[in-house]
């Protein structure tokens, strides 16, 4: 039972990280009509920023500000590239997919050549925090607690913004019909930039919480997380935010349970096997495509 509770908490905190990334990814898909494959890589890059800042300052506030700020800034910096592409090719999701894929290679290369000589980075133990619950190999650290509560708060805030505020209404309007939105006077370019900023904010928060939760990062982490984010989004139904919420949490819990109860590291094999089965039965995703 203790194992179950610990792994459930682990799963929820891991799952809420997936949810945040799936939400950011889907927001850009819905509003800006792009597949930003490099989004998880940007998040890993801001984990590197967080790690770099921790070397120079012990001011937690400054560290958080720098990593979130860098994620927002870099994400917004990609917007003109996608806007230019849209001008030449129309809003073509496939083109954005190929271009963002090349962005992942550039970002991964930067991390593996220029940062920490390509070695994985480890966050100081002070940053990760002490173990709160421990049963042999299974632990729940205070960093994971931060991730759990921070993740839930961020998800709630995101849905509040989207469904209860004027800005959220505008974002939803553009995602449904961008031409009609501009006809009624909504500035589409400005709103798209805002969607990049919100996705950047979600990514930056995730970077902080992931660094506390995992305690380390490597250049390959972006590919690893990216694959799961894309797969989860497709399984949930592309562009389906509520579906992303459920499936992100499910993925996190499935992985932790597999780690908790099965020998060896079968967690990835099991979660991707489940995704394969879902796609065979429901090709449009569990909750239906909304993009």
């Amino acid at each position, binding site marked *: 039972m203790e194992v179950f509770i610990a792994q459930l908490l682990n799963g929820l905190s891991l799952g809420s990280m997936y949810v945040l990334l799936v939400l950011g990814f889907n927001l850009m898909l819905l509003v800006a009509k792009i597949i930003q494959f490099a989004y998880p890589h940007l998040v890993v890059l801001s984990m590197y920023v967080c790690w770099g800042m921790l070397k120079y300052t012990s001011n937690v506030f400054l560290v958080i500000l720098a990593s979130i700020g860098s994620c927002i800034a870099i994400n917004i910096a990609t917007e003109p590239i996608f806007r230019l592409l849209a001008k030449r090719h129309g809003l073509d999701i496939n083109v954005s997919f190929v271009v963002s894929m090349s962005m992942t290679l550039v970002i991964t290369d930067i991390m593996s050549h220029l940062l920490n000589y390509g070695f994985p980075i480890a966050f100081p133990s002070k940053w990760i925090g002490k173990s709160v619950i421990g049963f042999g190999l299974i632990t729940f650290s205070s960093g994971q607690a931060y991730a759990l509560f921070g993740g839930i708060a961020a998800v709630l805030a995101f849905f509040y913004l989207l469904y209860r505020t*004027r800005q959220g*209404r505008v974002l939803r309007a553009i995602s449904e019909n961008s031409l009609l939105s501009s006809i009624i006077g*909504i500035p589409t370019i400005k709103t798209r930039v805002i969607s990049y900023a919100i996705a950047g904010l979600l990514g930056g928060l995730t970077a902080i919480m992931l660094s506390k939760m995992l305690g380390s990062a490597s250049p390959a982490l972006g590919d690893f997380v990216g694959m799961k984010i894309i797969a989860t989004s497709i399984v949930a139904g592309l562009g389906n935010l509520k579906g992303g919420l459920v499936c992100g949490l499910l993925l996190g819990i499935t992985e932790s349970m597999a780690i908790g109860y099965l020998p060896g590291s079968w967690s990835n094999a099991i979660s991707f096997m489940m995704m394969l089965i879902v796609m065979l039965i429901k090709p449009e995703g569990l909750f239906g495509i909304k993009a």
Partner: protein
Amino acid sequence: MLRVEDIFVSYGPIKALENININVNAGETVALIGANGAGKTTLLKAIMGIQKVSAGKIIFLGEEITNVGTDKIANRGLGLIPEGHLVFSTMTVLENLQLGSYNNPNCFNDNLESVFESFPILHKRINQIAGTLSGGEQQMLSIARSLMAKPKLIIVDEPSLGLAPKVIGEIFNILRGLNKKGYTILLAEQKAKKALEFVDRAYVMEIGKIVLHGPAQELISNPKVHNAYLGSKI
């Protein structure tokens, strides 16, 4: 109020509009009539900045709006009610109206009251998802949404498209009422008879050109118009 001077629009090598000149004065109702493919919608799209204009000028309230962004044109007071009663179908009636008042959220409550006065049915359905409304109700919502922005000129594209005859009558009554309240209306309509009964003046379009224009009464009695658009000979 709105002046279109010698505009040309082309889709690649195909000339969609050639040498179009129209003007709309404050308080008037003006129609563009013509068959499917005559270029009515293209002209409206050009005015709204949705379709790029290759030559010519569009002037609204003394300012040139040729090839300006659509949202900027809308915020200057041009309210397009697009064809096919377009609404944000996943959102509620209220949310649609809130979006309509994007550029002047301060007058939201006053505008909402006056819109509900003209469209009591929308008041009843205020929390209903717009996609579940009937075609006529969606068209009303589409008109109401554009009124929320207090436009100076209302442009209506094919308001009768896909609606039952009885509903079409209701929609035209609503437009008539809006004109009485002082709204200027530019209307593009295939159903020439309906349109000519409603407007002061009209332009007749054929394959991208304006072939005739004049007061509606004159056009109704013009044998050419009668044969081509009104279906019976005089």
